[in-house]
């Protein structure tokens, strides 16, 4: 197992290196750079005429005159060695200051969503498979098609409306107004939890529907295996039997798509965040692109891909733990 984990870690490091290069190239792709943008911002409408030499001076000041390779190594070196993601030009501070809190909030939304997804879909999928063909099974199937069909920004609006009406809750955003700028405390954490469930439920909705169907299908297959009948013939009590034998294998496709789920959550998050008024990374990424604030955009892209790659790593480890045949390479 240790060898397997080490192999995957090395694989992950190589992937991240390649990803960082790609991110850097993507950052360079838009025409112009922040020096152009800065000059335009500063002097447009002032009547001052800006020469190419002026822009070049700004470029030197910001360090953008160096060749791309040099800047890449500066950038990645700073990240790996000092956790320094560079300068956020538009905010005139460091990238870490700009994205700091938002990273944690995005992660909080991500993990809450994942937990809700799996905690709901796995037991329900198992239940539906065991009760296959019953009224409960058909009801759950209808629910999951509904879940797949409903766009989640619409669901966000509906939930927002009812949460507000029934709980009279100020439910938009991630914090109540009195905690918004307050330092971290237990009360603030609790306030976050009270706000987090809504975006998490919205984001988990379609994944729950999808994973229930996956779990139900694989569980139905696993239930028919001879090893399950054999275990039943040895007198293993039904509840324990279901978890120990068929569920452990049936969970495989759910675990192996954790990375995809993370990816999907990241791509749906900006829309949901816009509807619910959340602070998260997606909106900032868009703004950074518009401003050509490349180190902010780069840091966000790098973090998001790192989280996806890392969750894939976790999913690999979990798969190997669930099915020992994987690490044997059989």
């Amino acid at each position, binding site marked *: 197992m240790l060898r397997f984990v080490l192999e995957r870690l090395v694989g992950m490091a190589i992937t991240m290196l390649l990803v960082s290069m790609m991110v850097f190239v993507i950052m360079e792709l838009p025409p112009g750079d922040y020096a152009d943008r800065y000059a335009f911002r500063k002097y447009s409408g002032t009547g001052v005429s800006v020469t190419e030499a002026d822009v070049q001076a700004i470029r030197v000041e910001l360090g953008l005159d160096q060749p791309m390779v040099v800047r890449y190594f500066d950038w990645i070196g700073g990240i790996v060695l000092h956790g320094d993601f560079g300068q956020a030009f538009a905010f005139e501070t460091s990238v870490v200051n700009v994205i700091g809190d938002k990273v944690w909030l995005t992660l909080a939304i991500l993990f809450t969503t994942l937990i809700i997804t799996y905690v709901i879909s796995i037991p329900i999928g198992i239940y539906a498979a065991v009760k296959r063909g019953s009224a409960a099974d058909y009801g759950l199937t209808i629910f999951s098609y509904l879940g797949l069909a409903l766009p989640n920004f619409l669901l966000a609006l509906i939930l927002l409306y009812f949460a507000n009406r029934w709980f009279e809750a100020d439910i938009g955003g991630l914090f109540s107004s009195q905690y918004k700028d307050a330092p971290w405390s237990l009360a603030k954490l609790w306030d976050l939890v009270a706000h987090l469930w809504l975006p998490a439920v919205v984001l988990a909705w379609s994944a729950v529907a999808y994973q229930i169907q996956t779990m139900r299908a694989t569980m139905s297959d696993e239930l028919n295996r001879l090893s399950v009948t*054999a275990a039943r013939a040895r007198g293993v009590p039904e509840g324990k039997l279901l978890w120990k034998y068929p569920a452990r294998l049936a969970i495989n496709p759910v675990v192996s798509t954790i990375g995809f789920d993370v990816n999907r959550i990241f791509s749906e998050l900006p829309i949901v965040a816009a509807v619910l008024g959340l602070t998260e990374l997606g909106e900032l990424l868009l703004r950074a692109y518009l401003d050509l604030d490349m180190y902010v955009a780069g840091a966000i892209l790098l973090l998001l891909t790192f989280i996806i790659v890392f969750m894939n790593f976790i999913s690999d480890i979990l798969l190997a733990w669930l099915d*020992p045949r994987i690490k044997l390479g059989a």
Partner: protein
Amino acid sequence: MLSVKNLSISFDTDEGRITPVRDVSFFVPQGKTLGIVGESGSGKSVSTKALMRLLPGNAKLSPESEILYRTKTGHELAIHSLKPSSRELGRLRGGEIGMIFQEPMASFSPVYSVGNQMMEAIRLHRGVGKGEARAIALDMLNRVGISNAAHRIDQYSHEMSGGMRQRAMIALALSAGPALLIADEPTTALDVTIQAQVLELMRELQQDLGMSMIFITHDLGVIAQIADEVAVMYLGTIVERGATRDVLRAPKHPYTQGLLKAIPSINTLQQRLNPVPGDIPSPSERPSGCPFHTRCPDAIAGVCDRKPPREIAVSQTSAVRCWLHDQDARNAA
């Protein structure tokens, strides 16, 4: 110790109700082996699954069906009326009746070691701790002839060879100490050398442990080696039963005779094989009257296709269901 009376099993399927087992009765004496022979689809596996209540949810036992079992403690148990989640059923499965299957590879879970699955069964039925359960499992693996058991116990089934896997499967089924072992074609997937070894092993274990056994096979040769009594099944009905020696020496039913004739022999090497003509009909197209009359060389037109024959005792130990042996009823009809 186990007696089955008038067992009928039907399934509700999309194409309607089928009844793959009809009115089957047999008895397994203490310490003896009952062999059940039949082609695929004859209902032999389904009837033994019913003994442990392992049939799927769409299966129904008829109201006349009776499965009576005497436990190791001498307690009479009506298996047919046990509740699916009852503790008696949990104790019965594994602890009283063990089962081994045709495919050892598929009957082990691939994600737990052989030892893990053995210790689970031992702890369930013997109420011992982890350490003791492991010792019992090791002892059992040694007993079935697995070399280097201390190493093998932590292996997975896919790390073992076919013969060894079948031995491990036997060890697993016996580890909880059942009094009756149901073996569902345990040697079919093995080559003949290994098959002989496994049969030998099962006979030894049966004697050592004083177990009763139900041995399902389609191979009369295997029956001759291992069974004290034999029941020949055709389309869900026992057509002939009796002491193995009697049935194999002097078969009464045309089906048993056909099966015996179909076995290639060293004396008939020059001849072509002599199969039972025709195919076994599907349970949904069961012939009227005697189920075998469509393939029977001696079928009596107007009799065999009308009414199913009753069971006729032909000696003290054997009985047959065939119109050829029921002169009285034939005359009366």
